[in-house]
């Protein structure tokens, strides 16, 4: 069903290479902040304001959106930028991948992972709670680290970044024992 390691690895490698050759290294987790900013700015339109004195032309009352001369504030004000559209397009890519996969199980989505069912049963509410909590921790961690699996681990190690190697070590050092403990049969 899934591509073998060599075909998959080649495709993955070429995607990362293509991005850095044509535009910039792939990254995803920053866009969660941008979407938060867009939602926040809709609720309170003083969150991001035009500011000619800021390096990027925008400033924010939030220290994080305001950092690096209002870089994130600018992206919030102009959501049709490369990085945000890139992540939105990934949703479409996932859909296409699913369609072209031609599953024997008639393409029906396996909503609850088997490892989850073995450990926690097939209640979708439990799965929803776990993924919500997981998502919360993952994105908090990714923002603290300044990147996620895509930006630090893949794009970073591709460039031999020290931050990429150490991020990968830290993530696997916790993820492997956690997965073994939580999802042991």
């Amino acid at each position, binding site marked *: 069903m899934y591509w073998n390691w060599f075909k998959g*690895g080649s495709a993955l490698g070429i995607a990362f290479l293509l991005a850095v*050759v044509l535009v910039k290294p792939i990254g995803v987790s920053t866009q969660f902040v941008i979407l*938060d900013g867009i939602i926040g700015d809709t609720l309170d339109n003083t969150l991001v304001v035009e500011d000619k004195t800021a390096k990027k032309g925008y400033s924010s009352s939030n220290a994080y959106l305001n950092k690096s001369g209002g870089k994130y504030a600018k992206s919030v004000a102009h959501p049709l930028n490369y990085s945000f559209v890139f992540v939105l397009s990934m*949703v479409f890519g996932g859909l296409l991948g699913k369609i072209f996969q031609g599953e024997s199980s008639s393409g029906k989505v396996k909503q609850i992972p088997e490892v989850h069912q073995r450990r926690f049963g097939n209640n979708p509410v439990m799965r929803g709670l776990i993924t919500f909590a997981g998502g919360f921790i993952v994105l908090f961690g990714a923002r603290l680290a300044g990147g996620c*699996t895509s930006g630090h681990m893949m794009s970073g190690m591709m460039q031999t970044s020290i931050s990429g190697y150490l991020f990968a070590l830290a993530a696997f050092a*916790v993820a492997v024992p956690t*997965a073994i403990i939580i*999802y042991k049969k």
Partner: protein
Amino acid sequence: MDIILAVIIGTVFGFVLQRIGAADPDKIIGMLRLTDLHLMRTIFAGIGISSALLFIGMMAGIIDPGHLSVKSMYTGVIFGGMLLGLGWALSGFCPGTGVVALGTGRIDALFFILGGLGGAAVYMMMYGGLKSTFLMQKLFGGKATLVVTAKSTAILDMSWSPWIAIGIGIMMLIVAKLLPEKIR
């Protein structure tokens, strides 16, 4: 032009993540439990191939190093990486694969993304207080790489060190080849 490239490369990347099984929590948790190493092999091969080709292309003058972007190294990278590892193992998603899984129609991915928006929002609100703490302390001089690039300070500061990056890339490809598909 940038937007067209964003749509094309984003769609390709999402498509590939789905086709290698990275958006399938069973495959992710299988890799992290060290029972199903298929994805581990794919990721090693992916990094190895992209890195080797990147440095070969830059040495040959075909690839413009101007698009490189090296992320800073600071204490928070370690603590943030550990937190990400915890949530990754718990849910079976990381930020990119959660987004892709949403596209395939997974409801659990929607909850992952909602949780992620919450986690990112809390970080945004805490950042003002965190930015002058030890968590933001730069290490290795910040934007550091193992080998010489146009956009970083190199640990191995010799003009021939990009060859080492090519060597590491090839080694990762060999590791991917040698790793067994299933362990237990």
